[in-house]
């Protein structure tokens, strides 16, 4: 008879399982918060926590796009370049046409990101170029385009219309706009990933691509879609970025792609696709934000920051792997009976 021998036990264990990816990082974050609070009482103030949220807003948006891609066993290395290019085009446009309302600027960013993302999507889904190569290529190409269209010039604070600069600074209902953007994106994509067919198909494609084909999922379309969305989110992040830092340059956000991937991976998304949750990714970004914030607060030497950052990322990943493996082993032995 096909049964799960001890159904109840099995289920409670599996529930634990389902939560475990977020659990590991949550424990880690709590531990980190406790440790930092001891060193700096200022850390646990509302003021500072809001600041951390503002700080990770853009990272979270980009990391969510990256998550969609990684879930399908792919990777998008071009997000930072997409962000920069979108930011530059929008920046140049609004500096020439001061009347453009911020909302339109954001939409422009979305559109530009969508175009750039769909180029990646075509290269991967239609051109059948391995994702890491295709986006390694567009990483350089988009970055070069930023320089080419701007001619090396820059857009700075006084060239931007006031409403635009205040877009990232203002609050709505007491919530900073940047945080609000991130929350909206997170909610939309949480819904998308968990409550739409297409969202589930993204998991399916990453979980077992050949089976996905057999059940009639258009794998190419899904691949195209995730790149499109990743690009779109990066494009939007580009607009928020130039609003926040009040400047668009050719080296905007260089190296940001690795941060986004790190946040995703630390958030428990399997780099080999198929598993990972949106709350996990948000927590991953949060952990990254907390690390940076905490390092500043405990007044660590600037020369130690990078090393500590790297060490904590490794520690988070290693402990998460060991923890989930132990639980998996426990699960296997339970299921064996």
């Amino acid at each position, binding site marked *: *008879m096909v049964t*799960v021998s001890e159904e109840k036990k099995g289920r409670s264990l599996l529930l634990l399982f389902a939560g475990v990816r977020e659990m590991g990082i949550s424990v880690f974050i709590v531990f980190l918060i406790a440790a930092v609070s001891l060193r700096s009482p200022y850390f646990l103030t509302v003021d500072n926590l809001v600041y951390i949220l503002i700080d990770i807003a853009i990272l979270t948006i980009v990391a969510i796009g990256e998550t969609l891609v990684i879930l399908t066993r792919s990777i998008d290395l071009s997000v930072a370049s997409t962000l920069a290019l979108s930011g530059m085009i929008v920046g140049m446009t609004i500096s020439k046409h001061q009347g453009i309302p911020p909302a339109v600027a954001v939409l422009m960013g979305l559109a530009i990101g969508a175009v750039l993302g769909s180029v990646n999507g075509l290269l991967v889904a239609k051109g059948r170029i391995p994702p890491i190569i295709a986006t390694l290529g567009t990483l350089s190409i988009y970055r070069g385009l930023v320089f080419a269209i701007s001619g090396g010039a820059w857009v700075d604070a006084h060239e931007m219309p006031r409403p635009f600069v205040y877009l990232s600074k203002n609050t709505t209902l007491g919530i900073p706009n940047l945080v609000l953007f991130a929350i909206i994106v997170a909610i939309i994509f949480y819904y998308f990933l968990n409550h739409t067919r297409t969202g589930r*198909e993204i998991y399916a494609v990453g979980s077992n691509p050949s089976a996905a084909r057999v059940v009639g999922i258009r794998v190419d379309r899904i691949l195209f879609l995730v790149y499109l969305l990743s690009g779109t989110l990066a494009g939007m992040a580009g607009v928020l970025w130039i609003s926040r830092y009040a400047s668009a340059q050719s080296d905007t956000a260089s190296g940001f792609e690795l941060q986004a991937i790190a946040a995703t991976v630390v958030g428990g998304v399997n780099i080999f696709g198929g598993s990972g949750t949106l709350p996990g990714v948000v927590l991953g970004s949060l952990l990254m934000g907390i690390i940076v914030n905490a390092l500043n607060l405990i007044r660590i030497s600037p020369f130690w920051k990078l090393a500590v950052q790297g060490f904590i990322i490794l520690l988070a990943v290693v402990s998460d792997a060991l923890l989930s493996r132990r639980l998996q082993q426990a699960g296997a*032995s339970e299921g*064996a009976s």
Partner: protein
Amino acid sequence: MSDMSENLLELKGISKSFPGVQALDNVDFDLRPGEVHALVGENGAGKSTLVKVITGVHQPDAGEIRFQGQPVTFPNPLVAQQHGVAAIYQEPTLFPDLSVGENIFIGHQPVRPMTRRMDWKRLYERAGELLNALGVKLDPRTRVRGLSVAQQQMVEIAKALSLNARILIMDEPTSALTLRDVEDLFRITRRLREAGTAIVFISHRLEEAFELADRITVLRDGHYVGTRPVPSTTTDEVIQMMVGRTLDTLFPKEEVEIGEVMLRVEGLTKEGLFHDVSFELRRGEILGLAGLVGARRTDVARAIFGISPADSGSIWVDSRQVRISNPQEALALGIVYVPEDRQQQGLVLPMDITQNITLPILREFARRGGWLDNSAERETAQEFAERLDVRAAGLWQKVQQLSGGNQQKVVLAKWLAARPHILILDEPTRGIDVGTKAAVHELMSKLAGQGMSILMISSELPEILGMSDRIVVMYEGRVTAHFTRQEATQEKIMAAATGQPFSNS
């Protein structure tokens, strides 16, 4: 039989070729509602290709498909699905990261009418109903990763039911199942037949085809050989159709002299997997390790081979106690393990025959500074490929281009080239055709005659009974019985394998 309107599905003159292979050549096949139609043939006969044509995975080069008398084309699996075609494959094609319920409804999940939002509640309710209808106790919210193969098959069947399948194709569904699971599967299959579903049943176990099917169609080398109604044909006739000749015996085990103890396992235990496993294996002996799938026989074998070593207990080779913590050490002691999963664990598919055969013993061909002596390597590969009668265009051929039987021969050649004293075979004839099966059995017999000690894991009772000198039975990680060749019977083994009390006279 020839009444067109009676046929739900009709294939006429189907041909399909792949680069270098004519997989199907002018094949006919028809299917009526409420029948089980068995499709049999040796490996490489074209069964799987035919299935993939029906399910829309492959498009035929020539021929015609009629559905309810109307010509149709299935350009992709989706269209076939819409016509009510569902398939269960030998290897379940599920999504390990998704839940059971989601797997059942993937591609046609229930959504709320207006919002197109996934209706999780309904999904799990209906999944639960489907599983209940199948008599399967499985929580639809469980993740598929970690389910047994049998459980996964049931999920596949539930998936087919969820599609209201009118045609259900079962491609070797039983090859990974235990007898008990097979009975369950048959019970469910019959129930589906009664409900009017047309079922295509593919199996290499003829007795199953005879037990279940109404008609049997035989393919050979991509050609259609014939169709026979079950009551009026015999196993012999079908075997003849399959191989084009009669087979004398499947299990040619010779009596050989049994020598001293070569391998002794004492109290081997691995937490959560197996407990206190003890047995000994003598020179020239074939020791059958019987049990149901999930009895943890493979885990014991892996522990002996050092892939995942045991927590406690001792292993003695040649009356010396040894520690085996990885396969390299096992290899050095003359122990080799032929895994059940050839493609994943046995072969490096994109590499050629030579490179696969010499993989474990590559160091033997390394000259000064690690320099590889290619001609010596080729000679060895040639020798063992010939000994095993590997059929290929040349040693340079990539293993992925070989048939399943030939792939198994390459795996065996690889391990024989390592000149082992102790050979562990895990389901050595699973999923391979009758001809190769006989060849494998003959080879085992010969090797034992030459003094090799063989530990054979098999879920096929006739194979266990026919080949083993002694039999050890496991149930849920424990050894439950030892039998000699003389005292073993199908019933006794089954009793021990299902954990039932028995009297060992």
